[in-house]
Each structure stands twice: as structure tokens, then as C-alpha cells.
């Protein structure tokens, strides 16, 4: 479990007041959770992500990862093994000349024996469906494939929490789908806990739980159905409904028996079939 206990974070700022980027966050993330984090630009999402593995430390309060406090320096490497972070731009995160070597990078750093390492890399490659491309050069892969290699690199460390900070914002539609499908599979089959930051409301709708940040505060949390019922609240937070949900609401305004809280395309098609 990752526990946020009254976490506040302030950045020093060039203006008179220091900038509060996280404000009194209380949150329990349980093993196997599948959480999306949404919020306007500057709402504290990335700072939140960096707290999860001690890249940034709380100014007040504590972040506890499986009983390790991120503030204790001797724990930091154990924490980083448990919590892997994937950032937006895959090109900045790939280091080696082949896919296999890239995934092995973290393991080499912790001095793992070669035969063990080989097995671990193979395992991680299979988890992200990239075994066939293990000898490819990373720069020749598509955006989605690159992100999968980055994810595999984290998994190879036996990460149990995967934090992804807008991993699809530079990808084409197929790449977005690939990444989303893989993390769904990792959550379902390997029970990897996923914390996924996104600006795409349609992506957030696919998670079990959504957390909404605003000016560093956690202002809403709940299932996508409950979050996306609150259209005007979201709008005030610079957010919006997924396109499909917008359509469902418009239809339900005209046709009272039509459900207003549809979240994805499949559900919409199914419902419309009953009506037309």
C-alpha cells in the first residue's frame, strides 16, 4: 500500500510567496488499484507522481510505500524498485541500442547475475508483448512500442506499482490503444497497481477510480460513473466529459429514458442498439 498522510509540497518560487503544489493530500493506494489522475495544467499531478517514489519529498506530511517512508534515505532504492515511473516522452527514457539491453539496464545497475537477468528480461518482454522485437533498435520502433519498452524496463525490476505520467500524449491513436491495453492487462493478470495521469477524459473513463486534483488539492475521487456525472463541477476545474458521455447527456435531455452516464464507445453502441 502507498499511503499519503497529510502531504503538502511547496516549491520555492521567484515571486514573493512560495508556490504550493500539493496541499494536505490524504490518500491510500491499495495493491491492485487501477487509478487515473486528472486535473488542469498546474494542478499538481506531476508533483503528485514524483512523490510516489521519492523523486520529490513532502514539505509536510509523509508518503509511506509498503511501510517505507520516502523521507528515509536508506529506503530510497527499495522504494524505487517497487515504484516505477514512465514519463511522457519515450525518447528521453530509452538508453540502450537494443530493446533487450534497454530493459536490462536497471538490472545491470543493481548487479544482477547474467543468467538471472536474461530470464527476467524475457519475462518482462513477454508481459508487454514485445518478445519478437527484442533485438530491434529502440529508435526504429513506433511511439507505442517505445513506451512498452519503457514499461517493460520498470517491470523487470519487479515493480509492483506503475506510475505513468501522460504516457500517451505524444502517441498516435494506435500507440495510445497499445499502451492502454498493456497496462490493463498488467493490472488484471499481474495485479500491478497502476496510477495513470492523463488529460484524455476518454482514457480516464477506463479506470476503476479517478482522482481529481485542483490547485494541489484532491477535490474529487470516485468511480468514473460518479466523477463524470458532475459535468459542471468538472468544467469549473478546466476539465470536461468524454465525448461519448457528452453525447449520452445530449440524448438523455431529449429522450428521458436514455442513460446519461455512458462512458465508452462499446457501451454507447450497445445502448443505441436498443433505441434504434
Amino acid at each position, binding site marked *: 500500500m502507498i499511503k499519503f498522510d497529510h502531504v503538502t509540497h511547496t516549491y520555492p518560487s521567484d515571486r514573493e510567496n512560495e508556490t504550493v503544489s500539493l496541499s494536505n493530500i490524504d490518500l491510500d493506494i491499495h495493491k491492485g488499484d487501477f487509478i487515473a489522475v486528472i486535473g488542469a*495544467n498546474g494542478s499538481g499531478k506531476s508533483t503528485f507522481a514524483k512523490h510516489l517514489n521519492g523523486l520529490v519529498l513532502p514539505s509536510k506530511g509523509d508518503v509511506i510505500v509498503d511501510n517505507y517512508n520516502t523521507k528515509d534515505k536508506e529506503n530510497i532504492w527499495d522504494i524505487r524498485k517497487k515504484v516505477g515511473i514512465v514519463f511522457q516522452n519515450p525518447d528521453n527514457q530509452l538508453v540502450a541500442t537494443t530493446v533487450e539491453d534497454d530493459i536490462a539496464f536497471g538490472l545491470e545497475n543493481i548487479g544482477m547475475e547474467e543468467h538471472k537477468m536474461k530470464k527476467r528480461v524475457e519475462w518482462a518482454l513477454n508481459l508487454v508483448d514485445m518478445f519478437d522485437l527484442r533485438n530491434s533498435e529502440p529508435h526504429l520502433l513506433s511511439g507505442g512500442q517505445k513506451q512498452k519498452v519503457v514499461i517493460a524496463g520498470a517491470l523487470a525490476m519487479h515493480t509492483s506499482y506503475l506510475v505513468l505520467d501522460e504516457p500517451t*500524449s505524444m502517441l*498516435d491513436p494506435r*500507440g495510445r490503444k497499445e499502451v492502454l491495453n498493456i497496462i490493463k492487462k498488467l493490472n488484471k493478470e499481474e495485479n500491478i497497481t497502476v496510477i495513470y495521469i492523463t*488529460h484524455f477524459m476518454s482514457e480516464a473513463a477506463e479506470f476503476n477510480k479517478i482522482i481529481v486534483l485542483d490547485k494541489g488539492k484532491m477535490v474529487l475521487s470516485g468511480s468514473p460513473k460518479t466523477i463524470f456525472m458532475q459535468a459542471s463541477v468538472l468544467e469549473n476545474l478546466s476539465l470536461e466529459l468524454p465525448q461519448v458521455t457528452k453525447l449520452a447527456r445530449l440524448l438523455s435531455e431529449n*429522450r428521458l429514458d436514455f442513460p446519461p452516464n455512458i462512458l465508452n464507445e462499446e457501451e454507447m*453502441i450497445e445502448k*443505441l442498439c436498443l433505441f*434504434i
Partner: protein
Amino acid sequence: MFIHLKNVSFTYNLHMPFETEVLKSINLVINKGEFVGIIGHTGCGKTTLLQIFNGLLEPTEGKILIDGIDIHKEKMKLKEIRKSIGLTFQYPENQLFEETIFKEVAFGPKNLGIKDDYLEKTVKKALNMVEMNYSIYKERSPFSLSGGEMRRVAIASTLAIDPEVIILDEPTASLDPQSRNSILTLIRELHCRYHKTIILVSHNMEVVAELAQRILVMEKGRIIMDGTPRKIFQDFAEKIESIGLALPQVTYIMYKLKQMGKPLNSGILTIEEAKDEILKVMKKKGGYDEIF
């Protein structure tokens, strides 16, 4: 001003061991006042094509004519070209570097020799176009702004040289929905109100479908489709999906329903259109009026 590409190919590292051909015999005319969307999967050559448009890259084969003039034949022309074809790269806020927003936006026009009162007027006008109040923002540091505001300043820097054609590479990536919508409104204004020619590259199919009048679909360095959004997303729906792209969400829903034999018009691009079409069909099926 019109842009004409004649048989343009581009190869990186020409005659070298790692030579890669990224554009393959592209023929294309973009007319004054058009709003063109370009889509294609990562690595299909979109960004290279944009750099050909404003003369940053020279075609390794073929030529690019602007208003009928071969821009690489007469080297002197390039500065003129860049003045009239503004390019905003991906994540343009990473290229901000000045101390104040004024200096940032003034950088381009100053390099073109604009000074004093006229410079101030130019900067004011550019900030005005992106709806940023000149007196409030001019002395602020661009680095104290939010992501959406930084993107606006970057676009204003392009507008400050008063280009006729504005090229935008993924202008809304990583912006929250509200900032995204306001940038899109801004782009629409640049087209409708200021009559700029717009060339927009995006992975967001909903955005391209709603804004562009014409879509170019690229694959492996070629333009494989060229037509209105309605034509592209209706007639080539399967092809679009097979090359790693997608239909806009509502277009996809209508397309699937039509495939299932529902009597719907499938060339739908926006939520409003979808709503109207669905309600129309629901009404036909009956039961609709009885509720009211």
C-alpha cells in the same frame, strides 16, 4: 500565397550508410485560405513535410514552389519565405527563452528589423490575437505562466512576424481540456477572422475532424488520401484504422451502428451531428413523441 510541392522526396543522410527516405514523391498544392489537417502515425514523415513547407529542409528531389517561385533556387528568398510561413513546433514552450513576454514575442520581428513604436505595436497585436492582455503580461516572465499560457505566448511569437500561413505541429498535446479548447478556438479565429492559411498536424482525430476543411493522410512518407474530413472518415474508415489511426469517437460509433444494419447516416463528425442524426432515427422508429 500558395504552396506547391512537385515530386518532393526527402532522404536523411543521403549517400550515407544510414540513409533513410522519409518523404516519397509528394505532389501537393495548398491554396490561400485553406485549413488543412495532416494525420498519420508516428514516424510517417509529417514533421519533415512541415519543415519542407517553410524551407527549413530542402527536398533531396523535386521542388517546392511558393507563389510559383522555386524557393531553393534563389537562396535570397528563404528569409522572405519564413516571414510569410510561420511554424510552431511541438511543445513550443520548450523554446521560450527570454526574460519577459515582450522580449519573447518581439524576438522574431526585431530580427526582421522592426523597431521602436512599430515593434511595440506588433507585439501588442500578436498578444491581442492570442487573447493575452498586453499591459498585464508584457513584463512577466514566460516561465511563470501555466502550460496553456506558455503555448499561447509561443504562438504569439509566430504571429508577430505576421505570416500568411501558419503551421502548427500538435498544438494541443499535453494541455488540459479547457486550455486545449481555448487554443482550438484561437486557431479557428486565425483562420476565420484573420484569414490565415492553417496547416495543422495532430494525432487527435476529433480535433482534425472538427476544424479542418481538408485532410491529408500520410503513410510511410507518402500522401495516401486527400479530401474533406467527411469523405476521409466515411469512405476510408477501414483504411484509416488499418494504418494506425482512428475515427473520431462519435464517427466510430455511427460507423459501427451502420455496419450492424442500423439506418443511420455514417458520415458524422461532431457530437451535435450525432445527436441530431440519432434523434431523427429514434423519432422515425416511434415511441419518441409519446414521451412528451
